[in-house]
């Protein structure tokens, strides 16, 4: 059973792509997450990733995010923020804590 994860992409009025993830991201579904990122990122310079509804993120997910730095704007819940700081991702992407 793969870890539950839903991904949806929409575009802001300014055309910026927003990838919204919900669930947990680990090794079992990191490929799907990466694919989602790649697809969303292909449409513009910047990509907003909304992780507000993500309860768990591990190094596989982080790696996928690192691949798109520095063109990412991350929206994260407070729970995930320390991880981004610890992993160094926070210093290469823009992070908004909800």
């Amino acid at each position, binding site marked *: 059973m793969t*870890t539950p994860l839903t991904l949806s992409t929409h575009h802001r009025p300014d055309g910026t792509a927003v990838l919204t993830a919900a669930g947990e991201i680990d*090794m079992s579904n990191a490929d799907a997450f990466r694919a989602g990122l790649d697809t969303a990122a292909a449409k513009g310079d910047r990509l907003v990733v909304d992780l507000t509804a993500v309860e*768990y993120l591990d*190094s596989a997910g982080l790696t996928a995010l*690192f691949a798109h730095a520095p063109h990412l704007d991350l929206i994260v819940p407070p729970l995930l923020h320390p991880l981004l700081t610890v992993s160094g991702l926070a210093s290469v992407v823009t992070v908004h804590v909800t």
Partner: protein
Amino acid sequence: MTDSEHAEPAELVFPGDSEMARRMRDFAWSAEPIGEPATWPASLRTACRICLTSRFPMIIWWGPELRFIYNDAYLPLLGTKHPALAKPGDLVWTEIWHIIGPMLQSVMASGQATWSEDLLLPMNRHGYWEETYWTYSYSPLHDDDGQVRGVFTAVSDTTERVIGERRLAVLQDLGGQSGTARSAEEACQLVAEALGRAGRDVPFATIYLRRSGSEELVPVATSPAGADPGPAGSRSVGAAPGPSGDGAEEWPLAEALVTGPVVLDDVVERFGELPAGGWQTPPNQAVVLPLPGETGAEPVGVIVLAASAGRALDEAYRTFLDLVARQTAALINGAVAYQVQQRRAEELAELDRAKTTFFSNISHEFRTPLTLIMGPVEELRAGLTGDDGKVREELEVIHRNGLRLGKLVNTLLDFSRIEAGRMQARFEPVDLATFTAELASVFRAAVEKAGLAFEVDCPPLPEPVYVDRGMWEKVVLNLLSNALKFTFDGSIRVTLRAEDGQAVLRVADTGVGVPADEMPRLFERFHRIENARSRSNEGSGIGLALVRELVGLHAGGITATSAEEEGTTFTLRLSFGHAHLPADSLIPAAATSAVSATADPYIQEALRWLPGTPAVEEAMLAPMTAEVAPDGHPDAHAGNLARERVLIADDNADMRDYLRRLLQADYEVETVTDGLAALDSARMSPPDLIISDVMMPRLDGLQLVSALRGEPRTAGVPVLLLSARAGQEASIEGFDAGADDYLVKPFSAAELLARVRANVELARMRNHHATWRAALIDSLQEAFFVLDETGAVIEANSSFTDILGYGPEGLPYQAPHPWWVDPAEDPEAHRQATETYAHMLGRTRGSSVTPVTHRDGHRLWVAATFNEVREPDTGRRMVVGAFRDVTAERFTTQRESALAALSVRLAEASTLPEALRAAVSQLCELWEARRILAATWDDAGQRYLTTSGEQIRWEDLDDQVRATLEGLRGRTPLHPITTTDPAGVGIIMEHPTGPLALWIEPGATRPFTVEDHTLLAVLCGYLGQALQRIHTFDQQRETALALQRAILGPARLPLGFAVRYEPAARPLEVGGDWYDTVELPDGRIGIVVGDCVGRGLQAATVMGQLRSACRALLLSSGPAQTLTALDRFAAMIPGATCTSVFCGVLDPETGRLTYSSAGHPPSILVHPDGRTQLLDEAGSTPLAVYQTEPRPEATCVLPPTGVLLLYTDGLVERRRRPIDAGIGEAAEAAKQGLNYPPEALAGHIMSGMEPAGGYDDDVALLLYRHPAPLEVAFAADSRHLAPVRTALRQWLGKLDIAPRLLQDVLVAVGEACANAIEHGHRHSPGHEVRLTASATADDLHLAVTDTGRWRTPRPHANPHRGRGIYLMRTLMQDVTIESGAVGTTVTMHTRISR
């Protein structure tokens, strides 16, 4: 559980898959009076469960017929009686029902439990009547109404132990006979008597001894007494075995002698019914064993030992009978050795008796012809007219010699009378001083005639002395005669004194003395001192022996001291009064005190020795003298020395020629014509004797004597003056001048020759004392020695040489004496020798036992006794001592004490390895060995090593040592073997698991002697038996332990729990305390800690029942309800009332605990912040004690990482201290260990609370930390990551930790799990990954384990993996990754923040 209509499934009543459980489940109970299990009372069902789940033999006897229910462990006890399920007890155990039936009935009737220890129950369970011993308890089983309906029994088969102890006692009894038998036959009788007392083990025995020098075997002793020794009478070994005359078969004695022990398994068939030794069936098995002789010798005989029909003749029994045979052989050999010695002594005594008898007979035969000679001679002498000088002279010769022969014959007769006890003494009160002086005066003439001073000093004594006059005469006359015979110069002195309440007679001479080596035989009959210079060659060598015997008849004593060339003193002591004498031998004082005619022959004989009597010629001429007293005594003049020089001074040429003719045959003769010439010659070369005429020109004889005496060079030259002047004045004049002798002309040639000879010999006589004394001390059996004031041994006797090997040739032996043990070899022995020596020199008397070394190197032990003496002549302080060889006695003592010490050490051991270690270290101490190695081999050839010192492994031994130990294998058991490279002593013996080789490397200070070899064999024989015994005990203990494990607590504890159990009664490892956890179907856990009254097996039995009941109750009831039900159950079980129980039900999810306490000390809850809380809100009375209110119940919630501590009062209760203090202490100990995992915490509390001497009461401890650790195992597949995460999140949730920490832990653990899946099992998906998580008060511990191998991290190839490890390290405080052949473990730790 009181609801019996509520049927339980068969699996619950008869749990488990044992044979009996299956059988009972399938059993058609309805057909039996016991009925369907569903109808059984709860107690029977509980008892059944206990019975079936126990590995200890148990039986339940149920109902009025005591029907039989039992478990698998009981099967071997039943033997062929199985199956016996539900059968009435009397049909099962018919043969012992007369014993156990009444016991069971009494339990049924009274409800009182019984306890039987080592009860003999003869059983027929293996097809024969077997002697078995049992320890068991019959406990009543009540039904639900409290009626005794059955009996519950746990039994223990103690047969091996009881029999083992009894056999050991038999062997000890046999061993105790050692040293008492005086003959081989007597030894056999003793063995038979000892075995007669051991009928249970040896119902019948018969011993055959080999006739010496033949092959014939003769039955000597049989046990029991009076039993027919068996079909074999006296027979030859060579005889073919076969039916004997009466049709019965023979014991295979010859076969046993040739091939060793023979086992017979058809005794009844072949030999009929032998005595059964108190057993109901006669023996059918027997062993015929050879009795080995002394080392290397042929067997001395054969012993037939029947084995009791009550025991199978197994290995242990065989070993036992073998030891009986060995002991028997040892006793026989000991007796034989004694007998040989005894026979030698008897032979010597017999020889002596024969000699006496011979002389006695001869003497009698002599008397008749002697009388017929003497009578006519007397008549002839009286009738002779006087002028026929020649005839008179011849007659005198006959008369004198007749007298002499008569005296000799009478002395011999006296002797034979004494010997035969026919000498009738008649003791009368005698004025001994006067009587002795008179006797002595009889000798005066002879003594003075011999030129000796004679001093008789006998002042009146304070009281009369009881003597037999005739005997006393002989004593005094013999001593005087002896003194005169051996004294050529000086004096003879007779003194009588009262000393120490005794009359002491001393006869001292200044004679030739007795050589020291002759002293011991001085008083021996017919013994004559060879080559001693004496006045006469005559003598029978019987005088002194007679004196000693006569003095002995007076209950007196005689001693002699002598120094060669100085003289001899005989000292006689007679007590005053007559208390020491037989009353019927006393007679009143006689009127006369005249000296009897007894003296005549003595005087006559003495006179004959002296010059001036014709006896000298007789002695020279008469060869008959030599025939009468053949003594081989060489003539003193026989020329083996340089001839003495005699100077003759006489102015008469005829006289000079006459004298020269007379003397030149024997002497170097020089003649001069006057005194001056004589003086010149003497000055130039002093002769041995000067014979001088008194009347001479120039210088007369008297002047010559004066001149000679005036010059030192010639002062000692003896001078014999010849004078024509008769009369006393003339001789006094001569003596005054200093002449040694005086002869009046005319003198006979013989007289002259005798005087010359006497004087020459007198002159030569010097210092022969020592020889005499040595002879005396040589006669002692003990090693006699004399120490001078410097401590040097200056004298020693022949026994000394025999015992120590140091002979007189090495004298003096300066201290330290060479027989002292070398301090380098054995410091302790040296110390003892030094101490003994110091005592000898420092004290006036004493004794001690000390080790010494024989000249040939062997060690022996001597008992030393010593006395300080003053040397009579010089007053020097000397020590006279004696050594007695006590090596054998000491060895016996040493063996006994070594055996005792070993058995004490072994008694303390409860397991085989412990026993072996104890034995090895004991032996090591005994021999002060450098080390002792004990190797055992199991069936697989695996070697196990036990050592006296630091434990080392077989593999770490030197090759040579290993080879030595291997070499011992297969050697004859219990035969010590000396090994050389490396040096030591090895022995092989039996060990329950196989052969046991023992190898001793002797210490430098304690050599291994021959006696030690024997001791080693004895000890190892004992050790082998002891090990067997312990092995048996060990097995029983294993059973007991299995029982304990079965009834004590759950085999598997739920997670988060730790327990400790410490029984007070060792080695029993069960007690009245218990703990229990019950995993309830809904996930909750029942927790119980209880404490039955009492200790030991009985308390354990009660405990087992309560525990089972409580377990069952918890399945359906809450704590209070359970305790209430248990109250009713406990009321039915004897000894169960007043049990205290803490019972709780825990929800491990929430930490919620519901509990109730039946009089049990409150449990303790320790909060993570260190606060402690007592769970005392639901306390009530102990079980089955009067109670009106329902039992209370309380609830509490265990905080995260809080610790729940349940215990029994043994943990906290101490004498003279309130229990609260102990509870506080336990809480404190738990608080200190808040950060320990449960196991470590339990250990910490137990050791922290343990009193100095260990717990003196049973202690049970159960603790739980909430929440229990998380343990998750999942297949290595990323799909499982999310569920694992959920489980972990839930578990962490119970800890109530900060969300941030929770997330950190989730990520770190997630990374570790991902690594395990990705790397550990990249090529083998599906393998298992394990996650464990546990918490203490302040710490979280996490571990992820896989079974794969991680690749070396290559961050560039796999950047996010490296990132994973980085994350783990950053989020956690410690991360350790251990990768090995079997997998990788990531352990992580972080502090808890809340």
